[in-house]
């Protein structure tokens, strides 16, 4: 069947004659005698083409054109105008009519107008198909990229884990050799060194396993309404003497009258403990020029957040490269001392709270980590 066409004219005679002539040309013809009826039919039948008189009582042709274009911009609308209505014809073009023909209607002119409208319809349809194809293609490629990225992340994680284990194995193998030599040659100092290597590496395996478990554990955060200073104070008290032993002075500067916030105290405790431990490590790093070491825990209430925790050190700061990688799995600058999981776990916990963790580091002045929590949970 040919295209459906809606013909609108207030003169029943014209409607009838044109209707027959269009049906002869193979169109499925619908007719309406006024704008309102035309709109009703348009809603129901969704014809591809509309042919409408401009001057009609009630809703005129231009109003009908506007309504149809608003609803269905792809529909082709051809206007029929009287001889003296050039002004109206031009106005209708402004409202995106496809074309106009003048009364009395000549068959050849009508033919040309209809053919042009049909060509435009088929272009639009093709364009739409292309666009949809493109969208599908983009969607598919995006999905593949996401998949590849996820596989790459798993690969990196496994590679990092393998590296950590290799390091520990090296230490254990070495320790065993030194210990055996000590037994064989009855050499006390070999015995002692070998034994220490084995002990140290056993400790590393334990730490790696604990970190891995902590990371993998799907612990449901237990959110509570609490003073945000609580975990900061706990971590300070836990670490102050250990820091002192290592020659680092640990200070705390907690804001008074912080409003209570909604957070998981155990999770935030872990985040702060990790940051403070890192800060102390940064100070006692051998390659760092000695000075009076200081690590500080601060809390405050910034605009728009429930609480801000700040952990700063005056240790030797980070390289640009390091700054970019600190939150990645298994990235560690501590050689065999670190597992490369601590900061990644910290970030995971802060993310779960809907908060942000960020860092500022300067080779001269040291590093400051900032954690902001919204206090409303995730």
């Amino acid at each position, binding site marked *: 069947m040919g295209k459906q066409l809606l013909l609108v004219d207030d003169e029943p005679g014209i409607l009838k004659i044109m209707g027959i002539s269009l049906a002869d040309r193979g169109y499925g013809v619908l007719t309406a005698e006024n704008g309102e009826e035309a709109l009703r039919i348009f809603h129901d039948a969704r014809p591809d083409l509309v042919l409408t008189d401009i001057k009609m009582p009630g809703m005129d042709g231009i109003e009908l054109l506007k309504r149809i274009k608003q609803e269905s911009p792809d529909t082709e609308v051809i206007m029929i105008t009287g001889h003296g209505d050039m002004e109206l014809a031009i106005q209708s073009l402004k409202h995106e009519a496809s074309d106009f023909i003048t009364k009395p209607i000549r068959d050849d002119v009508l033919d040309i107008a209809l053919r042009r409208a049909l060509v435009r319809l088929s272009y639009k349809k093709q364009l739409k198909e292309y666009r949809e194809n493109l969208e599908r293609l983009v969607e598919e490629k995006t999905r593949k990229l996401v998949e590849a990225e996820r596989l790459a992340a798993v690969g990196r994680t496994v590679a990092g884990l393998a*590296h950590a284990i*290799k*390091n520990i*194995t*090296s*230490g*254990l*193998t*070495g*320790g065993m*050799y*030194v210990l055996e*030599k000590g037994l064989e*040659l009855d050499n006390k100092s*070999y015995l002692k*060194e*070998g034994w220490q*290597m084995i002990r*140290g*590496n056993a400790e590393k395996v334990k730490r790696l396993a604990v970190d891995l478990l902590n990371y993998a554990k799907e612990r449901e955060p237990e959110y509570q309404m609490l003073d945000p200073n609580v975990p900061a104070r706990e971590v300070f008290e836990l670490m102050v003497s250990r820091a002192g032993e290592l020659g680092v002075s640990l200070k705390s500067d907690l804001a008074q009258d912080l409003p209570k916030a909604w957070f998981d105290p155990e999770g935030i405790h872990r985040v702060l403990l990790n940051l403070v431990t890192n800060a102390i490590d940064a100070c006692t790093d051998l*390659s760092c020029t000695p000075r009076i070491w200081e690590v500080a825990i601060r809390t405050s209430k910034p605009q728009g957040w429930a609480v801000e925790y700040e952990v700063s050190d005056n240790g030797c700061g980070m390289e640009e490269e390091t700054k970019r990688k600190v939150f990645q799995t298994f990235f560690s*600058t501590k*050689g*065999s001392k670190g597992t490369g999981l601590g900061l990644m776990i910290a970030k995971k916990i802060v993310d779960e709270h809907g908060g942000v963790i960020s860092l500022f580091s300067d080779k001269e002045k040291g590093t400051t980590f900032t954690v902001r929590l919204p206090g409303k949970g995730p």
Partner: protein
Amino acid sequence: MAKKVLVVDDELDMRIFVTTLLETNGFKPLAAQDGIQGLEMARKSKPSLIILDVMMPQESGISMYRELKSDPLLKDIPVIMLSALSKKTFFHSQRVLDEHRGEKIPEPAAYIEKPPEPDELLEAIRKSIK
């Protein structure tokens, strides 16, 4: 007299292991913990062999190796690379650097991946030193 072997590694465990291995097999080990210290000791004590880690902070083993091989006084000392880095990755990095700088640095006497087996390392040491 026992031959001097310089061990350059940033990890204490590795230094203890390799120096013990050397000491108990009739060599005289020297140890350095980074490339800068390593080069200094190599110049001062002219060892018969250098065992070098690749990934170290400060000056890496890769640049120390290239400096050794470009120094007329040191370039004939054999070097064993000992690293957690895979052999393939290391040799690839050398090719890239060669091309980039238009040099041709000879390959190390041996390349051993960590963790090293004591026998394997010892054999490589004996072969390289001859």
